[in-house]
């Protein structure tokens, strides 16, 4: 296949992933059934992982897939499934609130798109076009040298979050029974 054909295929793949992202996001916010929302979120996250591949980082794409689809979506599904009444019906949303939320979101979108299109984006002068900087090796080296403190603090935050989640969910059971 010649390069023009490959390029068209590439573009088609990219726009298909964008369409999947937007479709997943709409499924994640519009249906009333909470389980559809979670499945839409999983679809959206998978498509965003594919967009990261188009942006040149296979590692971040894999991490996105692993953490969001594999951990967060599954955790939300378990929270819904394990406590059966969590998907009980909500009262219908008042139309005025939906209209105000839509207006706020549209206003935000228009403002951001205006800023994006008006700004003249110029690459940093110190930018190096070295493809080896995109490798996992470079990320690992930066994580354990320049960003090591942040790395350790993140692990501490995760530990505190685990303990806090166990205490919050476990203690309230003891109090209410």
């Amino acid at each position, binding site marked *: 296949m010649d390069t023009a054909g490959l390029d068209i295929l590439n573009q088609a793949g990219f726009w298909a992933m964008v369409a999947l992202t*937007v479709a997943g996001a709409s499924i994640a916010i519009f249906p009333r059934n909470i389980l559809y929302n979670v499945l839409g979120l999983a679809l959206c996250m998978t498509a965003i992982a594919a967009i990261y591949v188009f*942006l040149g980082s296979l590692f971040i794409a894999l991490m996105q897939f692993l953490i969001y689809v594999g951990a967060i979506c599954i955790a939300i599904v378990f929270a819904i499934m394990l406590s059966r009444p969590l998907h009980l019906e909500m009262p219908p949303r008042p139309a005025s609130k939906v209209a105000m939320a839509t207006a706020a979101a549209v206003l935000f979108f228009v403002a951001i798109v205006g800023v994006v299109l008006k700004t003249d984006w110029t690459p940093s002068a110190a930018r190096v076009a070295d493809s080896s900087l995109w490798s996992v090796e470079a990320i690992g080296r930066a994580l354990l040298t320049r960003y090591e403190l942040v790395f350790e603090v993140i692990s501490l935050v*995760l530990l505190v*979050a685990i303990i*806090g*989640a166990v205490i919050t969910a476990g203690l309230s059971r003891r109090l*209410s029974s």
Partner: protein
Amino acid sequence: MNSLSTYLIISALLFSMGLMGILQRRNLIGMLISVELLLNAANLNFMAFNRFLAPDPVIGQIIALFVMGLAAAEAAIGLSIILALYRKMHSINIERAQRLKG
């Protein structure tokens, strides 16, 4: 390939959809899902700037990783708070969680 503006507009669209979700939903789990959409839009921005503008392409990827780690912590805490709140109120409609209202 595609220009920077394409990615920025996609991420702005994702962010406004998340914003709309968080403003109109009354279900706490639905709001948590919308927060995840917001975090992903920010992450997509980091990766796009990283790909097209940043001096050192490692930094944007590391920030994206950190955001993912914090999102995982936030989801764990959020879900446990939702479960605790449900046991107390027998509902996850946030308009009924008004005990702190003065």
